[in-house]
């Protein structure tokens, strides 16, 4: 009954609201205009970056995530080469990939061979299409072929070709300008080449009429690939052209200014002004480059101040690349090397220059922190890496944090390429913070957020953290564990850092750890010792390259760690290797013949054996210690065994006899 009444009320209410809805006019709000990426941005802001995930270029699996810089490069390149191999196959045999269901047809999935300059029709059209695809050497070959076959090439096409060959010095596009293969673009290195004299560019320059444009292109090319002779030629060309009442373009002036001394560059700027050519950022960058050639610090400072003042007066906003040139060359390059600063005077000069450089950088950061940063030239991103380098030298953590916040802010559109420059930037920042911070918690948080995603594990970083842990009064098990685990993946377990790992693990106060931490300690020690033993057993011909024999000091430390986790039996098995002569002789040797067990580790093992009343263990320790100690040192140890352990007369006689036979 009540239900019926309730239903009636609801219906009545609905009806009344419908009636009032008809009376009111419904207005539909206009849609808020959003950009195509706005929704994605909103999602990204909500989720935020996952600092523990690997870079998206890698296979997201613990065994395939690279931790060192070298591994990152190797894996990235391996994947890219695999892709290139597949693409090459598809280019060679396109009929095998003819599963043509895509509508519209997608050329991205139909790779095709480039036109062969020796096979195509020697026409202007083919030449233009090769020029358009920026295949410089192919274009040169086709042009020479057309000349030998007496095919006429119009002046317009010749000019197009001249532009291309002068810009790239008749060689193919450098790796840094490759569009489709990111690995080659970032990791490929081209040698700095000098002007290819007598090449197609020179030939075309002779053929084409000497207009303002052709002369400017030639001068720019000569300055871009400059050596002594090409620079002289560029200057001569400029003089000749000026004498013939010609005017060269701004780009040619930029080239000439950048490769001259500052005094000559100033004259060139005056000539530019006389010819009413307005300078741009590139002109000022060239001027700054010219200013870097001044040998004295004071002269350079004066020149930089002058150039920046001029930029301000004209209203040209300096690009990050302008600041990069300044920051890079403020401090004398000779003073940067610690070893070369061999006297007080040089040290004082370095400090003074560094202070000035930091104050300049502070000023620059204040300026750029309020503006939106956009890439103007290809070297803009280098500013951040150079700036952090300077701050690292000056140990200025505060400014480094400011630089990082500018780099990571949304208004910054200048990003460094991952795995190369960006990794250097973050590595420097991390090292600076670790050096300047006393709190291990802060180091741990920063380390886990950056390693290995942004910064590859490296020996300098790991040893810095070990040093920090040693000097700190606190202990931080998660940090130590993390650094050791990263060290294992980065192949640091043999050598100095391996020794450091053992030392740090033996310094850990087990009673201060919680239950789960103690379990972690146990499994870490087990894993490490197992790896060391396994590597020492690579005695087969194929594997010997990877073998790292156990050293006596390593064995003693490992045995100590094993006794700490309660694996006495394994520890004594390991210690017996020291007494086994065959273990260090021949091709099957797993132990280094040289070196001695660590006295402190042996002393602790001996005490442990006495505590356990383990006669066999104590005797083994005594025998190992006898390799380095004489009779006077061994006698008290033997007496302690007799006191603490249940030694029968036979055992006593053997031990006494052993000690007596040791040298005095």
């Amino acid at each position, binding site marked *: 009954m009540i239900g019926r009444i309730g239903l009636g009320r609801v219906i009545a209410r609905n009806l009344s609201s419908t009636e009032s809805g008809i009376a009111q006019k419904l207005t539909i709000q206009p849609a808020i205009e959003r950009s195509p990426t706005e929704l994605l941005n909103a999602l990204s802001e909500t989720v935020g970056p996952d600092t523990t995930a690997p870079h998206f270029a890698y*296979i997201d*699996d613990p065994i395939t995530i690279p931790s060192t810089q070298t591994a990152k490069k190797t894996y990235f390149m391996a994947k890219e*080469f695999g892709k290139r*191999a597949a693409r090459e196959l*598809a280019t060679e045999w396109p009929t095998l*990939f003819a599963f043509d269901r895509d509508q519209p047809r997608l050329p991205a999935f*139909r790779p095709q061979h480039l036109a062969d300059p020796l096979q195509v029709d020697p026409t202007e059209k083919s030449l233009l299409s090769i020029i358009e695809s920026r295949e410089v050497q192919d274009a040169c070959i086709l042009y020479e072929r057309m000349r030998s076959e007496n095919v006429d090439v119009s002046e317009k096409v010749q000019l197009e070709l001249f532009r291309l060959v002068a810009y790239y010095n008749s060689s193919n596009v450098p790796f840094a300008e490759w569009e489709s293969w990111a690995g080659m673009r970032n990791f490929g290195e081209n040698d700095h080449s000098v002007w290819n004299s007598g090449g197609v560019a020179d030939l075309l320059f002779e053929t084409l009429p000497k207009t303002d444009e052709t002369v400017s292109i030639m001068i720019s090319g000569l300055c871009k690939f400059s050596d002594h002779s090409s620079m002289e030629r560029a200057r001569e060309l400029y003089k000749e052209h000026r004498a013939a009442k010609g005017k060269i373009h701004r780009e040619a002036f930029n080239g000439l200014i950048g490769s001259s001394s500052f005094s000559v560059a100033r004259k060139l700027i005056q000539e530019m002004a006389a010819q009413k050519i307005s300078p741009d950022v590139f002109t000022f960058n060239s001027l700054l480059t010219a200013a870097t050639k001044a040998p004295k610090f004071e002269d350079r400072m004066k020149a930089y101040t002058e150039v920046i003042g001029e930029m301000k007066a004209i209203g040209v906003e300096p690009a990050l690349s302008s600041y990069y040139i300044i920051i890079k060359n403020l401090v004398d390059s000779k003073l940067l090397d610690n070893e070369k600063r061999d006297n007080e005077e040089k040290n004082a000069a370095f400090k003074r220059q560094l202070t000035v450089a930091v104050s300049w950088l502070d000023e620059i950061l204040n300026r750029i922190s309020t503006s939106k940063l956009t890439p103007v030239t290809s070297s803009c991103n280098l500013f951040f890496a150079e700036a952090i380098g300077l701050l690292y030298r000056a140990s200025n953590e505060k400014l480094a944090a400011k630089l990082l916040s500018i780099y990571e802010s949304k208004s910054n559109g200048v990003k460094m390429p991952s795995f190369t420059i960006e990794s250097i930037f973050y590595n420097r920042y991390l090292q600076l913070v670790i050096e300047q911070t006393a709190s291990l918690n802060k180091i741990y948080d920063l380390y886990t957020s950056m390693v290995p995603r942004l910064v590859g594990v490296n020996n300098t970083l790991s040893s810095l953290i070990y040093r920090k842990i040693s000097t700190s009064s606190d202990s931080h098990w998660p940090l130590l564990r993390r650094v050791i685990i990263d060290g294992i993946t980065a192949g640091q377990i043999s050598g100095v850092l391996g020794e450091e790992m053992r030392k740090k693990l033996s310094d850990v106060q087990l009673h201060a750890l919680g239950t789960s931490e103690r379990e972690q300690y146990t499994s870490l020690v087990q894993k490490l010792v197992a790896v060391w033993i396994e590597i020492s057993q690579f005695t087969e011909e194929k594997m010997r390259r990877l073998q790292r024999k156990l050293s006596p000091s390593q064995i003693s430390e490992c045995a100590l760690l094993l006794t700490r986790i309660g694996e006495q039996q394994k520890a004594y098995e390991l210690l017996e290797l020291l007494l086994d002569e065959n273990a260090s002789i021949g091709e099957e040797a797993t132990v280094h013949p040289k070196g001695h067990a660590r006295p402190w580790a042996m002393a602790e093992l001996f005490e442990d054996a006495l505590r356990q009343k383990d006669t066999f263990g104590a005797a083994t320790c005594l025998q190992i210690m006898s390799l380095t100690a004489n009779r006077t040192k061994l006698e008290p140890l033997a007496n302690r065994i007799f006191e603490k352990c249940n030694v029968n007369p036979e055992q006593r006689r053997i031990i006494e006899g052993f000690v007596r036979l040791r040298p005095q």
Partner: protein
Amino acid sequence: MLRSLQHVESHINQCRQISTTSTLLKNRAGKTKSTSNRTQLLTYEMAQKPHHIGVRKSWLTWHSQNLEEFRQSQPLVVAQDEVVRRFIRGFFPQNLVVSGNEIVIKRRGNVLIVAGFLQYSRRLDIRRIYWMFGFAEEFLSILLKQPVKLELSFVESEETVAYNYI
């Protein structure tokens, strides 16, 4: 009368005859023969019966072509799946787990994602794995004219994916 009988006989001959061979009325799908010493490995996928699909286990191919109103090119999807499975089986012969029978193919937008497990116990060369991943992704992309991504995870050996031994 006799003529009509003749007609009946010919009619009977045309119909299906009663089968005299032993019948196979059992459902054989999803039933794995057990061994006396319990050495037959079963993965989770194998251990669940066909009627558990969609309840305890899921499909090995994920796309919208088998839904009502979305059927545009169902045969094409089936053919593509087979191409992808055969390619993965042939290209990673050393790394397959349970003969590559449990590769999951997912279609999301225009992207085809291949997921599943591979093992590395026979040979662990990570650089080689990266090369093969790059090759397989690009090869399948060019072949199917759509981006293909591999989301294959690694286990040390086949035993890691064992759910039961029968």
